[in-house]
Each structure stands twice: as structure tokens, then as C-alpha cells.
């Protein structure tokens, strides 16, 4: 392994390497892969008539080792400059690719938008919607072209998604809504981790508080979703403050451990407080949201009121737009807060706590606002999750959820709104896309994470847009500067 690590280091340098060295390095990697693959891949247990048997899989090992060899060789050849004619050939090839990419780069927004326009023109999805629904896509795209901002492209896609060709109930529910929930959770946690720099491993606690708040308020007092939603957010924010107080003096690893414990405590309380939460059985029959009092049911509901044919798709699309609006509100509030003194104080605290103190920033308030606002968004998302599922149990709020949300924030680029959205799309949407691969999708997931960490160690979008500039706003690369330590 040590040898592979050294090889990786060397691959990072721009020193020219010879073809022979590249081959030798690839061979070393292949040998390591072979050693590693032996215990993992070589045998597979198969069910036989009476007992379990073993099946040798030398073919799988051969494929794996060959893949590692080829991959390593490709990295060696494409990574550093290679000496000799082969190297020149590769260098020319590489610069040509880079040039083409840059040529497209300036136009990629426009190109993407043209593509989407074509998609919009190609017809509606499962619902037969009027043509003006295409405006949901076309208007944001037009604004995007005008303002030269790819974020609008995402907005247009998100708005149009339920009506896009091929968008079935399955896709809207298991892809669209799910991705948006995680986008929202990612943006919420981004306030705490990305902006304020407080490593929170128990974010799922606030998600759970939101979900149970809504479920219990709705069932006990018969309150509607729209009244409970802000209440759930406020309750989650209160829990955020409650967590914030004991951890005010902690940072880094210590903070992570306490927040991790907090997340687990909430889950264990939910399991054991049977009389209130129903324990492991959870809460079922959680009321669904209404559209200004209109329910989504067969008779006398939304469809009847508008003279449409009833379909369960209406409710799903409604849910989709609720979470989209919630996510957009989260984004809007965060972007606004960043420009206010409190948001700037968050970022300053992430950079250097001592400097913050010496500039008269109240660290206590700054930490508590970060925790409570992040928690509030988690609470909103939780309330939505409860109403969408109709059933919640402590099983939905395990540490695994916290880890996924944190991974989204870290991989997306801490503090970057667009990056977090992209990471949520790739990680949650990606695992849904690869559902057919069954258990191997976790492998794809792992490979994707490793790839991001190797090529974009500071996240997909690592730059940070300054909140103030006298002349022009420009993005500043994250690779040039070391992190702040405080």
C-alpha cells in the first residue's frame, strides 16, 4: 500500500516520467489489486443441495486486476507529462481536449438551455398538460441566458420536472421529491457546517424533531400542515439552541462527538418514549397537506374543483412543489443572511474564532443562531417528510442519514449553495438511478466519493463568492489558500 501511496504522490508532480516507469507503476498497482482481490473476490458461497459450497471466480479477479492496471496506466499517461514521442502525442491530445472543452465552456450554459428547450418541445409527460406549462421551463431558462447564470437552468429543470416527458409517479416521488428533501437538508446543514464551520454529526436529530412535531401536533390537536410547518421549524430551532448551549466551547472533533451523541439521544428517546411517540412502531396516518383547503381525494377534492379527472399523480406533484418551494426558501434565506452581519459573523467564525472575538463579535450568539437556523430548516424538511410518508418511525432517523447529509455538504463544497444542490442530485439521485444494480450501487457511491475527493478535494464547487466587492464580484479558487485554523 505504501508503494501505491508514493506512486500517487509522484503522479501529482509535473516531472516527466518514462513509459517504462509508467508501466512498472501500473504493474505494481495491479499486484496490490491482486493481493487485495484474493480474499474478497476469489470465492463465493453458493447454495447446494445440502450445504453451502464454494465457487471460485478467477475470471472476476482477472477483470479487476486488468481494470486496475489499465486505469493506473491511464492516470500515469494522462496525469504527468511523459517523455519521448509517446508523451508528446499524449500531451497534444490532452491540450486538444482541453481546448475543445474551453471552447464549449463559454457556451455550455446556452447549449444546455437549447437542449432543455428541445426537450420541452418534445411533448408533455404522463399528464396531458396545456402547452403553457412549458413556460415553467422556458421562462427560467430565458432569465438564465439573460443573466448568464446556470443556477436558473437548474431552477427551470426543477420547475418543469413533473411535466417532463417520461416523468412517471415513480420518478417524481422517488427521484424528484427525495432529491429535493436532501437538497433542503444539505442547504440547512450548510449553514452550520459550511458557513459557521461547526462540524455537526447529529443533524438528523432536527429532521426527526420536525417530523415528530408535525405528526404529533397534527394528530393530537388536528392542526393543518400549514400551521404545523412553522411550529415544527420553531421547535427544531429550539432544540438547536438547546444543543448549542452545552457545546458553545467545543470545536472540531469534540463538537462532532457531542453532536453525534445528541443525534443518537433523540433517536433513543423516540424509541423508548412509547406513550408519546409510539416507540419503534412509529406514528401512522399522518394527515396530508391541502391546497387552500382542497384535499387530494377522489370526490369533492382538487380534481373535482378544477374539473379534472382524478389521479393520484396530482397529490404527488403537489408534494413535489411544496418541497421545491421549501428548498428555494431555504436557499433564499441563506443567501440573504450571508450578506447580513450575522452571516458574515458565521463565516468569520469559521475562519478564525480569536479574530472574531477581537472584532467584538459575540461568539455565543453567533453559534446559537447558526445552530438554530440550521435546525429550523431541518425541522421544515422533517415536517414535510412526515406528511409525504404518512408514517414515521425512529428507523428513518439513524446516524446514516446524518452521514449522508454531511457527505452532501462536504462533497458539494462547504458553503456553496450550487455545489450542495449538485451533490444531493448526484448522491441521492445517483443511488436511485443505480437501484437496478442492487448492492453494487453502494460500490458506485463509494467510487464517486473517492473520485470527488481525489480530483476536487474541496468539493465540487470549491470557490466562494465574496459578499461585497467594489468593482466586480468574482469567484476565488479554493486551491490557492490554506484553510483557516482557529
Amino acid at each position, binding site marked *: 500500500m505504501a508503494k501505491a501511496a508514493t506512486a500517487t504522490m509522484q503522479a501529482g508532480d509535473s516531472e516527466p516520467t518514462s513509459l517504462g516507469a509508467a508501466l512498472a507503476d501500473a504493474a505494481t498497482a495491479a499486484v496490490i489489486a491482486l493481493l487485495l482481490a484474493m480474499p474478497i473476490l476469489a470465492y463465493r458461497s453458493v447454495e447446494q443441495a445440502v450445504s453451502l459450497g464454494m465457487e471460485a471466480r478467477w475470471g472476476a479477479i482477472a477483470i479487476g486486476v486488468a481494470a486496475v492496471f489499465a486505469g493506473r496506466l491511464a492516470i500515469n499517461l494522462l496525469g504527468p507529462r511523459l517523455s519521448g514521442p509517446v508523451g508528446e502525442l499524449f500531451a497534444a491530445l490532452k491540450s486538444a481536449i482541453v481546448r475543445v472543452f474551453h471552447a464549449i465552456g463559454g457556451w455550455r450554459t446556452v447549449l444546455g438551455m437549447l437542449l432543455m428547450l428541445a426537450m420541452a418541445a418534445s411533448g408533455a409527460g404522463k399528464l396531458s398538460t396545456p402547452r403553457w406549462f412549458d413556460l415553467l421551463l422556458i421562462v427560467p431558462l430565458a432569465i438564465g441566458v439573460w443573466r448568464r447564470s446556470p443556477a436558473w437552468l437548474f431552477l427551470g429543470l426543477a420547475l418543469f420536472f413533473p411535466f417532463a416527458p417520461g416523468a412517471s409517479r415513480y420518478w417524481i416521488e422517488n427521484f424528484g421529491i427525495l432529491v429535493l428533501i436532501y437538497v433542503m437538508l444539505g442547504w440547512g446543514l450548510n449553514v452550520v457546517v459550511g458557513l459557521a464551520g461547526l462540524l455537526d454529526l447529529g443533524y438528523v436529530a432536527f429532521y426527526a424533531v420536525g417530523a415528530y412535531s408535525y405528526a404529533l401536533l397534527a394528530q393530537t390537536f388536528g392542526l393543518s400542515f400549514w400551521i404545523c410547518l412553522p411550529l415544527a421549524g420553531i421547535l427544531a430551532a429550539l432544540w438547536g439552541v438547546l444543543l448549542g448551549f452545552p457545546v458553545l466551547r467545543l470545536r472540531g472533533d469534540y463538537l462532532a462527538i457531542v453532536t453525534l451523541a445528541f443525534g443518537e439521544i433523540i433517536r433513543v428517546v423516540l424509541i423508548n418514549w412509547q406513550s408519546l411517540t409510539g416507540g419503534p412502531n412509529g406514528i401512522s396516518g399522518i394527515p396530508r397537506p391541502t391546497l387552500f383547503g382542497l384535499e387530494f381525494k377522489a370526490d369533492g377534492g382538487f380534481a373535482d374543483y378544477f374539473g379534472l379527472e382524478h389521479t393520484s399523480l396530482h397529490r404527488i406533484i403537489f408534494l413535489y412543489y411544496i418541497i421545491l418551494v421549501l428548498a428555494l426558501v431555504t436557499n433564499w434565506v441563506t443567501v440573504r443572511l450571508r450578506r447580513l452581519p450575522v452571516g458574515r459573523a458565521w463565516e468569520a467564525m469559521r475562519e478564525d474564532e480569536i479574530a472574531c472575538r477581537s*472584532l467584538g463579535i459575540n461568539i455565543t450568539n453567533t453559534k446559537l443562531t447558526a445552530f438554530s437556523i440550521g435546525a429550523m430548516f431541518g425541522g421544515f424538511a422533517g415536517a414535510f417528510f412526515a406528511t409525504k410518508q404518512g408514517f414515521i418511525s425512529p428507523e428513518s432517523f439513524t446516524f446514516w442519514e446524518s452521514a449522508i447529509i454531511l457527505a452532501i455538504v462536504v462533497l458539494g463544497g462547504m458553503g456553496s449553495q450550487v455545489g450542495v444542490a449538485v451533490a444531493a442530485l448526484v448522491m441521492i439521485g445517483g443511488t436511485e438511478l443505480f437501484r437496478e444494480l442492487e448492492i453494487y450501487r453502494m460500490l458506485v457511491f463509494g467510487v464517486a466519493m473517492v473520485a470527488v475527493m481525489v480530483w476536487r478535494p474541496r468539493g465540487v464547487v470549491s470557490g466562494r463568492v465574496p459578499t461585497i466587492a467594489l468593482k466586480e464580484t468574482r469567484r476565488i479558487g479554493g486551491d490557492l489558500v490554506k484553510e483557516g485554523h482557529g
Partner: protein
Amino acid sequence: MTRPLLSLRGVETFYGKVQALRGVDLDVRAGEIATIIGANGAGKTTLMMTICGTPRARHGQIEFDGQDITRLATHRIMHLRIAHSPEGRRIFPRMTVLENLQMGALLNPERDQTFDSDLKRAFELFPILERRQGQRGGTLSGGEQQMLAIARALMGRPKLLLLDEPSLGLAPLIVRQIFEVIRELNAREGLTVFLVEQNAYHALRLAHRGYVMVNGKITLSGTGAELLAREEIRAAYLEGGRH
């Protein structure tokens, strides 16, 4: 005699059981540059931090502008318009120069009206910062970072500027430049400065009043020129320090 702007009486600070300050008395008068010199570990930075309230003085009294600040929360102390440029500069590395300056202005309640003119003044004092304004703080050189740290502290329009080792790790030319700006600020605007330095020669030449700290105690005080002339000071702090 007028009341001093900042006065410390019998201040003792502990880190756990270790006593860092052993009864410090000193005064900083409005409009003067006061400096405290001393060897490594004498307690100079601790003194600075104690004025700011972290760590807190266990005994004694600190008074600023006629108000007892000994037990005040750190951010409240700073909001009395004390600006602190901490040891090791501590600028915000991922924020731009402009954003760093903006953070400094948080101390000033009238910042919305005065920000533009304060920014102009900061750029006049340190022209290099204007050219670097869109750059991240972390990409600046050490000298530029120190200038940014001082400019950031000034953005809050302080009554008292606490400067902790501005010459740390900088080239002599840059040190001279920075000390010149401090002198100018004091002479032109009457800014009160309390300076902690290892570079005794520069500090004492600049200061109206100097204190020498040894092992958490003030052992000598006097005008800058007086201290510079004293044989024991020259022997202890200025051997080869004339640069």
C-alpha cells in the same frame, strides 16, 4: 493630570494554577503611544488578552474610559471601541481583503454612513490593500497581512488600538513602514495606541511611554527615550536588536 484612558491596577491572571500576570499596574493616556516590551513568555500577550477579557483577570481592576471592564464580556469590551490586532495577525484567510475590512467595521455603530470614508482612509494608509482588495486574505504576503490586520482594526474607529507584535516575522523594511503608519496615525488623528513588542528598539523609539515586563511583572517604566538610554535595557533587549 487627566484620567488615563486605560488603567490596570494589580491585575493578576492565571492559566489554571500557573500565574501569568503578577500584579500589573499601568496606564495608557489618551493620545499617546504606550508600549510594553519584554522577553518571550514574560506575559505581554496575556496582558493584552486580559484587557480584552479572555482570559479574565482573577484579581485587580481594569478601567477603560472611566468604566470598569474587568468583568465585562469580551464582545462588550470591544464594543467600547477597543480594537485589537491580535498576535499572528489572524486575518480571515478565505475572505477577501474587502470583506476582512468590512468585518472590522462591525464595531462601529455608524458604519453604514462612515464605511466608504473609512475604507478610503485605510487604502490611503496602506495603498497595497487597495490593489489587493478582491484577493483572498490568505494569499497576501506576511507584511500585507499585517497591514490588513491593522487596517481591519482601524475600520471600527477605535478609541484605543491594541497592537500585539506587529513586527512578528516581517522584513525590517516592512516593520519600519508599519511603525511609520502607527506614528502617523497617532500624530495626525491622536489615536491612542498600546503596543506589545519584542522589537524593543523600534517600539521604544516610537512610544511616548514604555513599560518593561519580566515574569508577569512590570519592572521598569518611563518615557521611551528614557528607557532606551538605560544601560540594563540596552543589555537585556537591544543587543543586536538595532535593525
